[in-house]
């Protein structure tokens, strides 16, 4: 674990509730399109609007994807799960109950490992499937906050979007670990293709349950729930701010109230949400309109067997292959980059060299051009051809960078073609290098004299001159060997 948050004898106790919007074609309980960003109230039907007599029918694919996520997170999958009604009145909830799951969720307990030298594990309580709420557009209010007196307009497009809520035990001990855990969990869900997990668009949302307790204590303090942290940075900052606030209260001898807090990223402050509302009484009961969902062991085994390589396993594999932890982590959590790497390594036969290229030139180009790995004009095939020219000594590193830039600029170009057209092949061979050395030594008699007089460092200058003479194409290693031999003869 990275350094736990500990201040003045208190430690942090953090649990997360993560909502993942599943990227099914249709909604959770009706066949309306599950689309983000359409015109308000155009992806709605009798079910979405909770018209009298409308009934939910559960989406098989949402159930399947939820189970895949559960399997990927190491959760037990019970044989039977059921939906329940969670009742609350609010304009974003058209039935005034949310179809959710209560005591029989689709995915049960699990353990998720954040790998690495300072890795840690987080116990998962459960993952359950539910439906998202509608969106309130607050007239006159700022930034979606619930305030102002102008009222709101409700858009039911989002209502019924399949939502998987993943709940952890309070096993996280620092804001940074919360971010690390969420990063890896997000990568896992993306890797299996269940969601885009785009925090800005709200397809991944994290709430944090935060408390502090004296170091060494096994009891939990009063927790607060932090909502609306729509980026990894805000999650870390919000939890940090709340820990500090709670510490301040405790040290001032004040009580911590169990409440829901809203993090405002523009001010970095926390404000109490719905504090005036009485404690919730959700009056859960089994949803009579839906029958229990059953899982058979055979189908579960098939689903588990067909999961792609998951980020944690990938991290382990890349680390064992000798990549440094930071590199392995980046590649493990970026499925696109990792797939590119694996393709490239297969073609080049050397994972480390491939990783250097992916982490270096490729990533710089992807960032600069705002592309994903799969979108890059430099396919693994083209890059492998380039790497082969470096490995076999045809070109040196300097030339290779130029070739890479040429491959980006011209999707039709080949590495070999660029090398030929631009005459980038290394000047190797004793004859060709000998000519250059002769010319350089002849032009710099003073330096030659100095070297021979014992000023060894002058050789660097002479190598540079030779390299310049070669147009940067000289094989630096061979050059230095030859030069030394000539000077000492």
């Amino acid at each position: 674990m990275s350094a736990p948050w500990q201040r003045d004898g208190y430690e942090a106790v953090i649990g997360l509730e993560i909502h993942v919007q599943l990227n099914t074609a249709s909604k959770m309980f009706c066949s309306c399109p599950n689309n983000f960003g359409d015109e308000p109230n155009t992806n709605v039907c009798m079910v979405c609007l909770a018209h009298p007599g409308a009934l939910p029918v559960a989406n098989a694919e949402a159930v399947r994807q939820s189970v895949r996520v559960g399997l990927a997170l190491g959760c037990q999958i019970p044989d039977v799960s059921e939906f329940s009604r969670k009742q609350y009145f609010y304009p974003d909830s058209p039935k005034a109950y949310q179809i959710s799951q209560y005591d029989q969720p689709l995915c049960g307990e699990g353990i998720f490992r954040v790998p690495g030298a300072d890795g840690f594990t987080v116990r998962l309580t459960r993952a359950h499937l539910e439906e998202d709420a509608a969106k309130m557009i607050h007239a006159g209010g700022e930034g979606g906050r619930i305030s102002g007196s102008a009222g709101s307009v409700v858009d039911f497009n989002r209502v019924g979007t399949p939502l998987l809520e993943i709940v952890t035990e309070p096993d996280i001990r620092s804001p940074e670990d919360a971010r690390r855990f969420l990063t890896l969990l997000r990568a896992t869900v993306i890797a299996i293709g269940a969601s885009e997990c785009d925090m800005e668009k709200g397809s991944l949302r994290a709430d944090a349950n935060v408390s502090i307790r004296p170091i060494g204590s096994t009891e939990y303090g009063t927790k607060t729930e932090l909502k609306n942290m729509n980026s990894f940075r805000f999650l870390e900052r919000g939890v940090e701010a709340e820990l500090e606030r709670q510490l301040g209260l405790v040290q001032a001898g004040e009580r911590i109230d169990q409440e829901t807090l809203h993090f405002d990223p523009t001010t970095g402050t926390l404000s109490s949400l719905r504090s005036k509302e009485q404690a919730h009484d959700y009056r859960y009961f089994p949803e009579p309109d839906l029958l229990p969902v059953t899982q058979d062991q055979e189908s579960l085994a098939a689903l588990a067997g067909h999961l792609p390589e998951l980020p944690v396993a990938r991290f382990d594999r890349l680390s064992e292959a000798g990549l440094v932890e930071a590199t392995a982590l980046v590649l493990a959590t970026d499925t696109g980059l990792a797939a590119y790497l694996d393709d490239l390594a297969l073609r080049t036969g050397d994972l480390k060299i491939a990783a250097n290229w992916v982490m270096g030139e490729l990533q710089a180009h992807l960032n600069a051009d705002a592309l994903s790995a799969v979108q890059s004009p430099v396919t693994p095939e083209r890059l492998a051809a380039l790497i082969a020219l470096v490995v076999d000594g045809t070109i040196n590193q300097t030339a290779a960078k130029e070739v890479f830039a040429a491959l980006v600029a011209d999707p039709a170009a080949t590495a070999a073609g660029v090398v030929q057209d631009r005459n980038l092949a290394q000047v190797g061979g004793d004859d060709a290098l000998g000519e250059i050395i002769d010319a350089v030594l002849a032009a710099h008699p003073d330096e030659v004299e100095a070297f021979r007089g014992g000023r060894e460092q002058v050789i660097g200058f002479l190598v540079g001159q030779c390299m310049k003479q070669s147009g940067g194409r000289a094989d630096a290693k061979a050059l230095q060997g030859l030069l030394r031999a000539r000077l000492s003869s």
Partner: protein
Amino acid sequence: MSGVELTADEVRHVAALARLGLDDAEVERLGRELTSILAHVNTIAALPIADVPPTKHSRDSADSLRPDVARPGLPREDALRNAPDPSADGFRVPPIGA
């Protein structure tokens, strides 16, 4: 628990959960009626049946899931047709308030 008598405060609490704005006369009447109905309902409270599994669903499990096929939603004018206070593209509600 056969002698349950609902106080006015309890009636108001339940009414608040159900978002029923009751006047005092309704609170008084419902308190009486609920007390007598619950007295009857409580005849099952003492049955020694704690080990009996509750019926959680109306029928046995069936293959009741829906294939993930999207169909277009309603035309917006149909969606808004019954709205008591429609805006151009949505359903207006009063402020959330204090």
